[in-house]
């Protein structure tokens, strides 16, 4: 069945079928690409997804609104906090409530930390997949420090289950100031060192510039969002365009690329990390100006029974637009919950992107898209 549709226009004898994944060092998580190659050139690539399908949307229909928060951790596990917040905001929107200012600021701080951590992993892994191991460690060591902050905030490192519907569960601990002051220069240094090791490295440039170029028009047609879209030259960031969580009050840039190649995606992520640091600084300053006893939670009933209706709410996660469509029938469980994962839309353009490129480029492209199987397969 797969063979037939895969080979439309080609005959089997002409090409070598290479099964990349689901268990392969470059297929992060459990992705699988069936590639037809002519020598080293990919003639046709067919991504097979679903190896990590856990039926999250079906599960949601059998869970109460609060019970589902931990499940959202398992979507993009590199930045679980963003998933949590996206889901919580969708339910808040459905209930017609808004989290208090302080909770929003804490969310911003944590989300931006998660964004840095996510980009660090993505850039690091891109390096590893292109054979440059060392930057990965520089970045991952600092990610570890970010995880320390998460751990000390709510006890979890990777699957944070951050926040509650209507706000956050706890205030930032007192020594966040000190922790952030310690972490900040190290983060900048790690980003800087990675930049020095990679950006102007001749081999790195050869491997990334012009590889899997994608035009802005195509990217929009394929539903790209996030860094991959910005790398194509489209200045779209939901934090600016559809502000939520007071993002309109922060001063930050939206970095864009030009050609939508691997290099641009890498550069956009690198610069976004720096912007995130700026946002955290500002958010923390605003946070400190708030009274210490400002509320952390909106008025939320114990049992959440949103009125019947359906809303879609999306936020800008490190990968792009992560949206939750929640349909309620008035009971304590969502009637239908649809997750719109960003890399799902991006990854479907993968065959188009890698057509005619080499196997090594296929790997580079995949890592630069930052496809996370958790949110891809749900």
């Amino acid at each position, binding site marked *: 069945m797969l063979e037939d549709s895969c080979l439309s226009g080609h005959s089997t004898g002409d090409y*070598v079928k290479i099964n990349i994944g689901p268990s392969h060092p470059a297929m992060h998580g459990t992705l699988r690409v069936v590639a037809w190659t002519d020598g080293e050139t990919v003639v046709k690539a067919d991504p097979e997804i679903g190896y990590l399908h856990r039926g999250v949307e079906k599960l949601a229909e059998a869970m109460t609104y609060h019970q589902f928060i931990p499940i959202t951790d398992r979507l993009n596990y590199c930045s679980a906090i963003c998933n949590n917040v996206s889901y919580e905001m969708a339910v808040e929107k459905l209930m017609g409530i808004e989290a208090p200012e302080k909770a929003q600021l804490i969310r911003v701080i944590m989300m931006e930390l998660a964004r840095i951590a996510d980009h660090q992993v993505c850039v690091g892994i891109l390096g590893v997949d292109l*054979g440059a191991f060392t930057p990965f460690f520089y970045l991952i060591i600092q990610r570890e420090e970010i995880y320390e902050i998460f751990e000390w905030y709510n006890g979890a490192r990777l699957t944070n289950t951050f926040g509650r519907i209507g706000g956050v569960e706890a205030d930032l601990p007192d020594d966040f100031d000190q922790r952030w002051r310690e972490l900040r220069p190290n983060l900048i240094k790690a980003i800087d060192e990675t930049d020095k090791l990679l950006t102007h490295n001749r*081999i790195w440039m050869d491997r990334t510039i012009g590889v899997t170029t994608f035009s802005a028009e195509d990217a929009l047609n394929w539903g790209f969002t996030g860094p991959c879209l910005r790398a194509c030259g489209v200045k779209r960031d939901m934090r600016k365009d559809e502000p939520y969580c007071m993002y309109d009050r922060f001063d930050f840039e939206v970095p864009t690329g030009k050609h939508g190649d691997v290099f641009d995606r890498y550069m956009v992520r690198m610069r976004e990390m720096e912007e995130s640091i700026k946002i955290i600084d500002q958010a923390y300053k605003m946070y400190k100006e708030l009274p210490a006893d400002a509320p952390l939670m909106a008025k939320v009933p114990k049992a959440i029974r949103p009125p019947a209706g359906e809303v879609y709410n999306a936020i800008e996660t490190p990968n792009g637009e992560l949206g939750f469509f929640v349909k309620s029938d008035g009971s304590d469980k969502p009637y239908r919950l649809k997750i719109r994962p960003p890399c799902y839309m991006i990854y479907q353009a993968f065959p188009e992107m890698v057509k005619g490129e080499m*196997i090594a480029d296929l790997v580079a492209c995949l890592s630069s898209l930052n496809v996370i199987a958790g949110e891809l397969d749900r």
Partner: protein
Amino acid sequence: MDDWLIALIKVVFIWVWVLLIAVIMTWVERRGASMIQDRLGPNRAGPFGLLQPLADGIKLFTKEDIVPDKAKKILFSLGPILFALPAFSAYAVVPFGDKIVLGGKEIILQVSDINVGFLYVVALGSMAVYGIIVGGWASNNKYSILGGLRSTAQLISYEVPLGLALLAITLIYGTFSLREIALAQQGTFLGVFPNWGIFKQPLGFILFIVTAYAEANRVPFDLPEAESEIVSGYHTEYGSMRLGLYLFGEYVNLCTLSALIVTFYFGAWHLPYINMAAFLGPISYGIASFLVFFLKVSFFLWLFVWVRWTVPRFRYDQVMGLGWKALIPLALINLFITALAIQLTI
């Protein structure tokens, strides 16, 4: 002492020495990587983790030896041997010191000083490709065969600039014997420069060191085993000591290549501006020359590690492009200029 006994001792010594370096190199690689990468690395087995290679060796030896069901059995076992054997044999003509006088008998610190040493080294260097292609083919795995093919193309392409770069060296020193080339690098020329290959052949040196990295399948030329692309390349299906032989062969190759770089371009056992033989006794001179040589080799071994953890990997077509479009023309130009210079000065 009989000549054959001396030869035997030299063979055993060089074999053990190379083996030892290869073993230590696995440790240096891992500790060096962790040093560069801001982490600890293996530090539990023995002081500074020095016994880690031993543990690795025991692990490799005691692991189950798996031969894939559909593999070509004979070729599958032959692969690692074909790979490791030339690596060891190449060292036979590489000097590891000048000479030592024991009991009035002068012993050359080289297994055999054959007058076609240069050809022998280049010939054996190209033999390694058989081990890789046979292993890659016999594994009956697409990644293996891809790795094998990549390696074949790469090794064959880079043989050419390697040979051309060395040819310029032989033009300058007028001999194919490695020992004579080494001996000729004593003293200075033009008054200031040591008589080393690197000063006479700067371009040749760059060509040689780049091709050496390609011949050794090291980053940035590690495409045959590019982990993120083709799993492990030609040794994907190998395990236990067969894999160990491949890894070992690689380190021995590094050792040989470093020794060649030192012999051809870095004045072998000579120190710049100092003639050790003039003020050292015959025995201590022998030891000193060995140590100097070893130190230089260690530096280049470390350089291999250093480069590996610094740069990314080339793409297949870029490797080919670099080889054919840059290195070979440069090597030809280098050879031409060298020949011209020699013609004009004589």
